[in-house]
């Protein structure tokens, strides 16, 4: 895994002063963040605070209105020329984000293809990989997420947790340097959340660089190197899980965490136990 030539090498993701507007609505208001190799960053925050928008800007699924986003040192989506910026071609966008994988809340599998085809098709189409090799790689990826026995199943024949694991395998097959997850377990029945989080834990321990928008505070507390709290389009708090969950006294953050704990309390005892 380790191929670090320079210690303290440049961040994989470097977001500088990014603003995003939808018409007159300002959704991101000057976001700065860096994600370094092998780091896990969890992004938390209230609904509508701009978490998805931020992640989608980093993937260039959304054009940011202002600022700069660098992926492994390359400016994403635009070229800077005499003071202004110009949108580059789709092919150029693809080139810069070729090492970025994205996992969606709604899985977004292609329903007319089997699990195997979902993973193999992009390898054939965008990497020009021969059919046999693509199928072999796809099978290996599905095995990695515990679905070696369901390669021929169509998405509609799989549970939500299994579908999301196919989604993860599909992104992993492209050998990304960073994986972005937008609420990967929010569409799942509670008993299926664990299997997806386990796959993500394994990835993190293998050294995958990850940015995860999540409402799973337990996961963030255990796995994240950095937790960021986004509120009204700005990063209102950021730091280690301990700093953010226990030390930081930002009132909006405390309120947010308080709401979370109250929602997840399931036993009214002296301890006031909370779900993970």
């Amino acid at each position, binding site marked *: 895994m380790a191929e670090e030539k320079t210690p303290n090498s440049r961040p994989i993701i470097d977001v500088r002063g990014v603003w995003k507007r939808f018409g007159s609505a300002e959704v991101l208001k000057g976001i700065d963040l860096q994600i370094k190799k092998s780091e896990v960053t969890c992004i938390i925050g209230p609904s509508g605070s701009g978490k998805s928008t931020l992640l989608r800007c980093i993937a260039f699924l959304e054009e940011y209105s202002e600022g700069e986003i660098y992926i492994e040192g390359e400016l994403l989506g635009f070229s800077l020329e005499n003071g202004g910026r110009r949108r580059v071609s789709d092919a150029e966008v693809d080139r810069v984000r070729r090492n970025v994988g994205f996992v969606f809340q709604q899985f*977004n599998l292609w329903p007319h*293809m089997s699990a195997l085809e979902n993973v193999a098709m992009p390898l054939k189409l965008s990497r020009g990989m021969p059919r046999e090799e693509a199928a072999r790689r796809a099978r290996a990826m599905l095995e990695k997420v515990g679905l070696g026995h369901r390669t021929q199943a*169509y998405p*509609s024949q799989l549970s939500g947790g299994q579908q999301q694991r196919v989604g993860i395998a599909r992104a992993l097959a492209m050998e990304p340097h960073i994986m972005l997850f937008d609420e990967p377990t929010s569409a799942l029945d509670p008993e299926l959340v664990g299997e997806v989080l386990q796959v993500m834990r394994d990835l993190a321990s293998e050294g995958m660089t990850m940015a995860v928008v999540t409402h799973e505070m337990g996961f963030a507390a255990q796995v994240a190197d950095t937790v960021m709290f986004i509120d009204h389009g700005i990063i209102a708090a950021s730091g280690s899980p301990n700093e953010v969950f226990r030390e930081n006294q930002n009132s909006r953050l405390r309120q947010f965490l308080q709401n979370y704990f109250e929602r997840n309390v399931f036993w009214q005892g002296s301890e006031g136990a909370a779900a993970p």
Partner: protein
Amino acid sequence: MTFNLAILTDNWRDLLDGMVLTVLIWAGGTVMGLAIGLMVAVVQLLTNRWIAAPLNVYVAVMRGTPFLIQLFIIYYGGPFFGLDLTPMVAGVAGLALYGGAYFSEIFRAGFVSVPPGQIEAARMMGISRLAIVRHVQLPQMLVIILPALANMTVLLSKETAVLSVITVNELTSVVQSIGSTTFAFAETLLFLALVYWAFLEIVTAAARRLEKRVGRFMLRTQN
């Protein structure tokens, strides 16, 4: 006057010729129309509005004016623009342009029916927009739009009759001339109706079989 089917058997040669010609025009117009419709819809989908604008005008004009007028303009107006077409070529081209406008609208609705998230997922995997159309959108939307495509194809079979006005000897014009010389309108018109009805049945049956094939992945949803 009695119902005399001999009229049909006596003229079977002319009727057969007319029918063959009708089927050729229909098949040619439909295949070319589908190609035009698909290309127009894809260009509208993938390019900016300045390129799409003339195509929108084309679609609006073809849908907003009678096919008869369009044929007249292509055939009789063509020479003014240096387009000297035979009746047959003008007719098939006219039918293709007319059908293409409707087909493009059907394809356009089909493209929209595929959830955008699936396209985003494909874009994140570095798949080009055109390859997404081919591998993600078309295979899924085909199930949905097949009935509409089949319906339009049947409508085009009936529009072939309009080609008689630019002297193409297709089935309707053959039947008309037999009718007007023998006055056996009932027999000839019944025959004509039966033939177009057969076209309808053939297309519908073909569409149903195709639907089952391209829709296999949807049937599995039910278990």
